């Protein structure tokens, strides 16, 4: 699953950049059992960071309460057309994924 890229859209309006991210992740809580009764091991995003160029604009700690394939939207001041927005996450298995998009 970690191979699936995030979908990121960033748009600037009146000096405020709105970023929308759709993350592709299983987000298993570790509380669910499969058909044979064995517990499905927990697998979820623990940390997420969003950067505007090299400046960190959002840092978040995720947990098991976050849904599968989470959707995230946030705004920050500054940012101009063509600037880079980078979002990266790390999950409890140590896997990471980083994707970027240009501000439109």
């Amino acid at each position, binding site marked *: 699953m970690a191979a699936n890229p995030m*979908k990121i*859209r960033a*748009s600037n309006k009146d000096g405020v950049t709105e970023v*929308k991210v*759709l993350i592709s992740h299983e987000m298993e809580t570790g509380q669910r059992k499969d058909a044979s009764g064995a517990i499905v091991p927990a697998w979820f995003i623990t940390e997420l960071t969003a950067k505007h160029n090299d400046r960190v604009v959002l840092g978040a700690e995720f947990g098991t309460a976050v*849904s*599968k*394939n989470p*959707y995230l939207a946030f705004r920050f001041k500054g940012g101009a057309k063509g600037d880079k927005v980078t979002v990266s996450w790390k999950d409890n298995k140590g896997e990471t994924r980083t994707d970027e998009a240009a501000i439109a």
Partner: protein
Amino acid sequence: MSRFSKSILVLALFGASTATFAFDNYKGIGRPATPAEIKAWDIDVRPDFKGLPKGSGNVDRGQELFEEKCASCHGTFGESNEVFTPLIGGTTKDDIKTGRVKGLSSGELPQRTTFTKVATISTVFDYIQRAMPWTAPKSLKPDDVYAILAYMLNLAEIVPADFTLSDKNIAEVQKLMPNRYGMTTDHGMWPGAPAKKGGIGNGGIPDVKNVACMKNCKPEAKIGSTLPDYARNAHGNLAEQTRSVGPVRGVNTSGDAPAAQPAAGAASPAMELAQKSGCMACHGVNNKIVGPGFNEIQARYKDQPDAETRLVAKVKAGGQGVWGAIPMPPNSHLPDADLTTLVKWILSGAK
């Protein structure tokens, strides 16, 4: 409807020489439809792509259009569950290969989406062209529909980001639809002979069997027990939940069900204007649909003397945040006089 339109078309083809043929039974009433009228009305797109207009559109253009016209209700990625069930999601690369969405039968899906269910791409095209955007249906040009569809296909990871969808390659895309083998036609609702005799239906055998009882009939069925009123809401208001069985949104169990809508026939001129202008797609008179009900608006603004001018400006420019996160689209295409009439009508109780 499609069968009906076919017969009309056939009549139109013979219409030139036998113009009175179809109307022999109704002498002096009406006239045959002109070819232009039939063309404007006959917009359906069929699974064999009959009726598909020529045109093309790419993913980038589709993204612009989607942001502008669709995202306010469907979400930027077609993921939103707030107004309608999501458009995109729940399909895998494997589904695209097999043509059956596995999540539908395995129960893995938290919720069904348009692309987990729809078997034919033509249906999506037809629907967007016919019914979207909700406030201004049939306003999209064929190229726009192609572009929006290309963007949705890209979101569903069926086509790459540099894809251009056109009437030439839409048949190729059909072969990639995740649930393309998911439709069964072995039901009485489908017309024609059974599939093994070359038709698409089952020969008209009904799905249910309801034989009229003529003797020794059972007495009328009585409901033995019902959930008491105080327990109806035991699991919260079902209308506000997403359910995996039955209708996606359940019945309103909160106990304050809105009063029934007045019949559409007995409408005032302002009500007709509201219907014509697309207001009623999102606003009810007494209850919230997507946006607030007109009586809720009236209750909130009734003591504010400047409400009329403020609301006219707001309806015109669109807005978001006062009644929740779902935005109202701008309505600058309506004349100011109409806007004022509508706002006055709403503030006077929408009767």
